[in-house]
């Protein structure tokens, strides 16, 4: 089964929620559990769980469950990124790509950026 290697970047302060890292590589199986579970067991190839193609909505939950180092509500609200965070897929607003339904492809570049307010 194929793996996806994603370049995930954080900006505008979102990096503070992920150990101050600006860029990370996330490895995901191309097929992930339909129930959105993110533990190692569920991501094993031979799990009995039903599978679906990994999409952006799943990546958000994966980042929340596996890599977030601050309170979840600073990143996620109602199952998607909280207001004030823009998600970019290969330098395009995710709204143009189907938002959470966008199916991830190998080598995709995903950016989570907080809107800035200062001046």
């Amino acid at each position, binding site marked *: 089964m194929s793996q996806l290697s994603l370049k995930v970047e954080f*900006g*505008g*302060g979102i990096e503070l929620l992920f150990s101050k890292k*600006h860029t990370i590589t996330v490895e995901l199986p191309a097929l992930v559990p339909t129930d959105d579970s993110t533990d190692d067991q569920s991501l094993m190839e031979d799990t009995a769980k039903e599978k679906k193609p990994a999409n952006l909505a799943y990546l958000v939950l994966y980042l929340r469950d596996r890599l977030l180092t601050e309170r979840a*509500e*600073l990143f996620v*609200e109602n199952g998607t990124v*909280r*207001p*004030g*965070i*823009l998600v*970019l897929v290969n*330098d*395009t*607003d995710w*709204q*143009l790509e189907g938002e959470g339904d966008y199916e991830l492809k190998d080598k995709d570049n995903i*950016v989570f*950026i*907080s*809107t*800035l*307010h*200062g*001046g």
Partner: protein
Amino acid sequence: MSALPLLDYQRYGRQMILDGIGFPGQVKLRKASVAVVGAGGLGCPALQYLCAAGIGRIGIIDHDRVELSNLQRQILHTEETIGLHKAESAARALKSMNSDVLLDVQTVAVVADNARELLAPYDILLDCTDNVPTRYLLSDTAVALGKPLVSGAAQKFEGQLSVFNYGANGPCYRCLYPTPPPRETVGSCAELGIFGVVTGTIGNLQALETIKIILGLHDETPALLIFSALGTPPFRSIKLRSKKESCLACGKSPRIPSSTDYVQFCGGPAPDWVSLGQSSGKANQRAKVEELRQAIESGVELSIIDVRPPTEFGICQLPGSRNIPLKALLEDPKKCIDSGTEPVYVVCRLGNDSQIAAKALRSQIEGEITVKDVIGGLQAWSKEIDPSFPIY
């Protein structure tokens, strides 16, 4: 017959000979009017270049006054204009640079009640403000008045730039951000820090986008430019969504009442951290700076924990104090207390984080150790005890 004063040919010659500007372009600039809301870190450089390029009329709107802590980035203000309204101070600087430009100085705050009237006279609006409610208000006003909004923002080493409500299908700020961010995720320049060349870069680009719109050189593609001063590459341009049909401001059925309370919409007013840090708290849980001074001078054993981030601790610190950043302290409060029994004083910059830290320590301690945090923090220490202690 020339439509330009004779000296303008000399003054603007270097840009007039550019293809894309020329004589008609210079006339367009001279006939244009723009409103710059906010004469701070973004507004100053934007104003400077708009004025130098020969925009005919510029509205400068800001109700704040110049402070010493502004001069690091708000490059039109000077030591001489500290205390003046920023709009007035900026106008003085611009006047001496280009006395031909008509400057409207407005020292009022832009609020829902006056926004349309204040901004109606101008062709293009620039959002050079520093807070979320005003950003929504300016976007809604730009939509209501049918004017492009050149929006800049900056924090720390990063900046963002977009033109809203422009072109056939350009989105407004609300299309992009229908819901404001939670209040607690929004910090100010004073809290988060800001680097002068970063606001300078974004402010310059705001002037550039404005001039491109005036000259008809803008391609109208909705985009967000992201600038990370420390990134490689430092700039990236993001293709943005177009206007959203469901947008409350610019969509199919707009329904933003002109009486909207933008501050409430964005989660209420920004906390006044200085006042909050000065609250007296519960009996025997907070100490005045005078108490700390006496404790230090009495020579008794005591422990001072400074919970600011390490970078701030490196700027200035009380002698003998230990730096344990708030986050580290909260992860394991027990580890932060020595085995001894000496009293613990917790300090921070203004006296807010120190309350959180002291509470966490008290909840973990068994026995006789007293834990107090210092009212008003190091700023109070400087004001009341030691004027030579830096305030930043």
